[in-house]
């Protein structure tokens, strides 16, 4: 029973991480049709910002380092929108996607050139590394927090999308952007808000990824975001609830396989999962909550 609860928490925290990232991808995609392959670099930027905060400003208090990571990711997401994605906003979706892909390669290699190949250590707050004992149960603080923060962030996002004018406008823009503009709502503002939210969610994920790894390297954003992409496809690409469901489903699948696969084939875990998803998509090409594909791209 304890073992089961422990694994459930694992699945919840890992799934939460994927859900946060997949949500960020889905929000940007639903509002402006951009497949943001540079999303992973928001995590990396958050990580390096935390590293620099320690190195340059000597920030020691881990409670201060965490917001630095989140704010850097938000700032960077908005910056990318302004300098890189606004010029291709009206272009076909492939152009925007390849643009994002190029940006991602540039950022990874800039980190290689200017910071170096080797991972840079970022101190993690000690209390984050502790376990809490509940009865006979030992729960790591990081995981409890991650699960809690994810659920909190998703709840806040739902409230935001339902109760603020800009949130409602973002939902409307997902289907019909030009009519949103006819309401006098500025397109730039809607898009910028979408990027800021995706940055916020990526920043939160970055904080927890950093807490687990204790170091930042140029390619750290890749794997989590690949998983997030897959999660978003499983949930139904572009659907926000789909992103959350897909993220948690992937987290549960990974933790279950991790716990049950014999060690000789444990290395194949991701291959098993992706193949299983391929079979799922054979029967339900549009994902769990997606709409049937219309053989055309959304713009």
């Amino acid at each position, binding site marked *: 029973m304890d073992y089961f609860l422990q694994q459930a928490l694992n699945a919840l925290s890992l799934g939460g991480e994927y859900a946060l990232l997949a949500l960020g991808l889905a929000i940007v*995609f639903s509002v402006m049709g951009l*497949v943001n392959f540079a999303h992973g670099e928001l995590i990396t930027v958050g990580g390096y910002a935390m590293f620099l905060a320690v190195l340059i400003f000597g920030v020691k208090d881990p409670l201060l380092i965490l917001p630095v990571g989140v704010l850097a990711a938000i700032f960077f997401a908005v910056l990318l929108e302004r300098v*890189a994605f606004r*010029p*291709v906003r009206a*272009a*076909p*979706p*492939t*152009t*925007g*996607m*390849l*643009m994002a*892909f*190029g*940006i*991602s*390669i*540039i*950022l*990874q*290699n*800039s*980190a*290689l*050139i200017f910071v170096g*190949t080797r991972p840079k250590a970022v101190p993690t707050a000690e209390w984050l590394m502790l376990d809490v004992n509940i009865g006979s149960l030992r729960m790591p603080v990081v995981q409890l927090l991650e699960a809690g923060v994810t659920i909190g962030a998703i709840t806040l996002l739902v409230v935001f999308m339902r109760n603020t004018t800009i949130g409602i406008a973002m939902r409307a823009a997902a289907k019909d952007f030009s009519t949103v503009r006819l309401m006098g709502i500025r397109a730039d503002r809607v898009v910028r808000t979408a990027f800021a939210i995706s940055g916020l969610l990526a920043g939160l994920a970055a904080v927890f990824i950093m807490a687990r790894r204790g170091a930042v390297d*140029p390619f750290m954003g890749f794997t989590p975001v*690949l998983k997030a*992409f*897959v999660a*978003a*496809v499983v949930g139904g*690409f*572009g659907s926000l609830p789909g992103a959350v469901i897909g993220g948690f489903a992937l987290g549960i699948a990974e933790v279950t396989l991790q716990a049950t696969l014999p060690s000789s*084939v444990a*290395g*194949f875990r*991701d*291959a098993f999962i*992706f*193949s299983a*998803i*391929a*079979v799922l*998509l*054979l029967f339900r*090409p549009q*994902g769990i909550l997606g709409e049937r*594909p*219309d*053989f*055309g*791209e*959304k713009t």
Partner: protein
Amino acid sequence: MTVKSSVLLGSAALGLLIALIGFSALLFAEPYHQRIVFIFMVNLIIVLGLQVFMGNCDITHFGHIGFMGIAAYAVAVLATPIAIKKTALATAPFGLSGIELPLFFAVPGAIAITLIVAFFVGLVMVRQTGVPATIATLAFLVVVHVVLLNWVDLTRGPRAFYGIPIKASLSTATAIAVVGVLIARMFRDSRWGVQLRASSEDAAAAAAVGVRMQRLRFAAWMLSALFLSVAGVLFALFVGTISPKSFYFELTFLTLAMLIIGGMHSVTGAVVGAIVVALGLEVTRFVENGPDIAGFELPQMFGLTGFYLGAVIVFGMAFRSEGIVGPQEIEEWWGSRQQGKQSDAGSSEAPNP
């Protein structure tokens, strides 16, 4: 099947260019440079294979190098001498450590294995559209990499697989690249290719012929995999030593950048992009290694080649999203320039409205 003369003309022009590069390297270049040109030919074949799928279906493909990896490892496992396998691959499954096929069987065998994998992956792929299709190709690349890394008994895992017979030559690679151009052009301008391109441009028309389009897309997918498997076999039989990281993101980025910057909607674009990016790449590699230039020693800048590829893609997308060449083939390009000249002359005489 009849081949349009324009296709032959365009292929001949591009083929001549490629043959020229290949044979001047054969005649005049040192072995080190011949090696660079061989790798260029392999990359060109990859880019052509990528064009067959991406250019006609308008779906970004991140998984092509996965097929190349499968073919390279397949030919390695089949053709490597038993003597080497005894030490390097003693625990291979299915009794493969005791098998050594002549190339005459090993090469078609490797290609067939790759195509069988492509067949099953293709079943999933053609049902996907747009973004999910692209993510699926990316996931495929990762799956291949994970398997190559972890199936240690068969692939030696992260350690290099060595001892593959070195049998490929620059002249073979050049000849295959030339034939590749012709095949890619024939497919693009065949009835299938034309239908495929029309349906990827127009969603409504595509829906009307939905099922048929899936079949056409499947054909493009398989042909693309054939190109990639040939590239993988050539590569393995030339370098003799391979490892999983030879078939991962670096090569994916490089070949994608080549196709995108040249213009993915034409075979001419694929060829031009491969040449332009390869030239730039050699310069960047030179600088990356921190050379002495006029007495100054430049610092080593690890990551510069990657930066270069990213920059190529970003600038391409920002300023010329159809690539250097655009959607037109070389012979159309020539024709439309002639036309352009004529209409320019016409408009300069007309009074300003």
